[in-house]
């Protein structure tokens, strides 16, 4: 498959040099980077998409570039047009720039400077036994397994999917029943000034498609397992998911990202969710990739009236992980709950962003995000809550708490409220601190060794978020994962 980005496009974006910038004094009045998109600033900056983005595009998606996979739905005009728009967006804006407010703290150069190739379909065949430890949480789960982004039927378990439901590979849907995806695909996320989302859309080929029809409740969770197996050269996988919940339907979806090898890989996933009126999605996202992995995840939900979207996100692995969870409350009485937890050590960087848009009256949203930061790691929380004109009766809260375990770790927190209505109740809070000295003393005075006491309290800090997983077996599984990681860097008691 050849992507035909025109050479002239590439010439156009050649940068005339970076704009002149003021020297950044550590205490300058620039407490924020330019808020306006760069492209709107001036002619000078308009063309300054950096060389990195260009060459990245050129190397990976550019002119005459062979992709190792077939892009599905090639005869679909709407899909071609989606890809084209996304490609144009990327060419115009490139990867997010450091100066962009919402990417202020994210070290994207790890990704943009790296060399990644789209993987060939895996030649070796994985056995179910090899992934047994990853699929034992709920034996009756519906499971889709993706290896390096390719749907892998023999590891999956979709036999018992009730006939009225659709749980299939997106590629298959685009080839055979594109009408199911057309009203939603690439219409919920933005690719405009969203470089990562744009490159996913440009070359999207596979992922999970879930459709739950109206008034249907699924009792067992749907488990989407993404296995990354990078044999020698670092690879890029771009899962693309679409969940469509018709009115009053209900299901739980678990997204689970794991590395099967020690090599670096880059996962750039995009998930779009459409919840009809009264629909309920209980969503868990667990990222536990290897210490060299890079992970960018974009998830956007659109919620109908009285729908409920709960998303619990656990970022435990990878060298760099940036996760954006957004929800648009477009129907009255919708409820959105986004929780997050990150646990980092070494030089890892975790970046958790949320954005909740209250468009309609009487919606509720709630967020709890916690971070534990050890060694030289860095954790970033940026939560944005926007209450649009007319969204009266909004009730929203947002809480971020960080535990710093080392002198070299850093926590950045930016909980934002943007309110354009008056009949609202919004609150947010953020804290950064260390373990409570009194509690530590209390435990040690009861004869518990200091190290064990630290473990207990740290785990206790995490517990609040773990408890929010409304599914016992998965809750237990996540708790064990976190306990194991904690023991790993705090040392066994």
């Amino acid at each position, binding site marked *: 498959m050849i992507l035909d980005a025109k050479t002239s496009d590439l010439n156009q974006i050649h940068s005339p040099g970076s704009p002149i910038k003021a020297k950044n004094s550590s205490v300058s009045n620039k407490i924020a980077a330019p808020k306006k998109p760069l492209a709107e600033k001036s002619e000078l900056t308009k063309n300054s998409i950096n060389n990195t983005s260009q060459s990245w595009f050129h190397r990976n998606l550019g002119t005459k570039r062979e992709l190792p996979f077939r892009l599905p739905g090639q005869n679909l005009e709407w899909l071609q047009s989606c890809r084209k728009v996304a490609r144009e967006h990327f060419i115009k804006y490139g990867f997010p720039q450091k100066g962009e407010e919402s990417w202020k703290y994210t070290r994207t150069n790890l990704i943009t400077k790296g060399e990644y190739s789209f993987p060939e379909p895996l030649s070796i065949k994985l056995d179910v036994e090899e992934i047994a430890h990853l699929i034992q949480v709920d034996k009756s789960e519906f499971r889709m397994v993706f290896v390096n982004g390719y749907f892998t039927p023999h590891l999956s378990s979709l036999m018992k999917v009730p006939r009225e439901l659709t749980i299939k590979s997106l590629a298959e849907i685009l080839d055979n029943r594109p009408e199911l995806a057309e009203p939603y695909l690439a219409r919920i996320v933005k690719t405009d000034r969203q470089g990562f989302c744009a490159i996913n859309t440009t070359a999207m080929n596979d992922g999970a498609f879930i459709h739950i029809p109206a008034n249907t409740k699924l009792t067992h969770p749907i488990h989407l397992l993404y296995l990354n197996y990078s044999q020698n050269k670092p690879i890029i996988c771009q899962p693309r998911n679409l969940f469509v919940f018709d009115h009053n339907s209900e299901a739980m979806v678990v997204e689970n990202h794991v590395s099967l090898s020690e090599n670096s890989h880059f996962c750039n996933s995009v998930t779009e969710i459409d919840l009809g009126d009264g629909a309920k999605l209980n969503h868990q996202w667990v990222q536990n990739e290897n210490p060299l992995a890079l992970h960018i995840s974009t998830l956007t939900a659109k919620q109908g009236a009285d729908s409920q979207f709960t998303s619990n996100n656990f970022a435990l692995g990878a060298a760099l992980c940036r996760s954006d969870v957004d929800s648009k409350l477009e129907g009255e009485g919708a409820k959105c709950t986004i929780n997050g937890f990150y646990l980092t050590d070494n030089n890892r960087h975790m970046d958790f962003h949320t954005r909740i848009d209250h468009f309609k009256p009487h919606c509720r949203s709630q967020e709890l995000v916690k971070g534990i930061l050890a060694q030289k790691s860095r954790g970033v929380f940026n939560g944005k809550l926007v209450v649009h004109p007319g969204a009266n009766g909004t009730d929203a809260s947002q809480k971020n708490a960080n535990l710093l375990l080392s002198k070299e770790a850093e926590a950045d927190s930016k909980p934002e409220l943007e309110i354009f*209505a008056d009949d609202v109740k919004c609150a947010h809070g953020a804290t*950064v601190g260390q373990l409570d000295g009194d509690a530590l003393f209390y435990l040690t005075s009861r004869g518990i060794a200091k190290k064990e006491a630290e473990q207990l309290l740290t785990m206790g800090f995490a517990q609040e978020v773990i408890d929010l997983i409304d599914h016992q077996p998965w809750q237990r599984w996540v708790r064990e994962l976190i306990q194991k990681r904690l023991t790993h860097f705090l040392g066994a008691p």
Partner: protein
Amino acid sequence: MELALWEIIMKKTTLIEELGVADYPQGFVTDIAADTIPPGLDENIIRTISSKKNEPDFLLSWRLAAFRHWQTLQEPSWSSVRYPAIDYQSLVYYSAPKSNKKGPASLDEVDPELLRAYEKLGVPLEEQKLLSGVAVDAVFDSVSVATTMRDQLAQHGVIFCPFSEAVAKYPELVEKYLGSVVPYRDNYFAALNASVFSDGSFCYVPKGVHCPMELSTYFRINAANTGQFERTLIIAEAGSSVSYLEGCSAPRRDENQLHAAVVELVAMEDAQIKYSTVQNWYPGDSQGKGGIYNFVTKRGECRGARSKISWTQVETGSAITWKYPSVILRGDNSTGSFHSVAVTRNFQQADTGTKMIHLGRNTSSTILSKGISAGHGHNAYRGLVRVAGKADGARNHTQCDSLLIGSQCRAHTYPYIEVKNPTAQVEHEATTSKISEDQLFYCRQRGLDPEDAISMIVNGFCQDVFQELPMEFAVEAHKLLSLSLEGSVG
């Protein structure tokens, strides 16, 4: 104390009602002959300003360096405020009342018209009418026209004078501290100010001296089409303390006017500086026409151990406010605080907050911000709390509340928290809501009409900030707030 205060407030409020003063009583123009230079900005203009003030070479070169730097900068666009592009070449950068050519030697020489203007503003400058215990520096457009109580202050070794006088008399102090907290490279408006600043207040409190009275500067923009670029520098030597108040107003005009000031505070070991502002620049009319662009850089540095700097501001005026009074907590055990009430109504915009930069050990900071947004008002809190790696034991507590009045207003909160030290404790809390129906019903059931009820509830909402203000200012603040809210109901 509290009782006395509210009694005064009640009395003053009644007084205002009796007088039937309009919502911006300071909006008058004083007719006075002025020495005004032509509009435009280039190196010649800067040389002109500098030569009018007989400045030493170091200052002129500093101005020119700042100007050259400014020319390389772009106007910042990151804040949430929006305004049409400013044509810097159409502004006048220097305008002084003619009578003041050499600066007044004594109050007798001050043009009576000016004295009347200040008296009308409630800031009498004649000795017999002076507010006891307050020394006033009156700045009119580009220059200081009078400074009171100077002899009494001199007895204690406190220097309080117009900035230009300090340049002439104490050049070594000015050279040592000017730009040491807010360098001209800091930001666009700081660079502009450094290039063209014309006057302002200078205060130096020697070692161990507790300044015996409140110092205050009243800034007045009078001339049309003129920017005001004043610069204030306050230095508190080891073990000293000073409380400084700042007030301001401008005539009602249809054009926007630019005010780009810089304030630098330096607190040495054990020194304390309390800086209070009641900002009441002309806010523009109910349609959003006219008003001051208040683009100000204020920063204090707790240079010595155990020093303290506190900012208290009540911002009711200006079409646009863009300011972040900040504290650099360099000295160990130093303390910074920021207490703010910002009111926006009609089409006013405010993007304001603070920065607390914790560098020293056991430093602590407190932020209390109350934003009130009415009409089409746009009110954003933007604050940064940064704890550097070496700032062991740093503490911050931030409370940020926004009150919404009317469905067209906006309230935004943008806190930035950056912590690099595990022993730090940083807490941020924010709420946004409208006035509770229950409170309103309760007050109305007791017989208060809705406007009075709102005014009372809002004043209560701001009480924690007002109580940080010196008494006279607290009264002023209550009054201003009530005036600002008039007509906000419904």
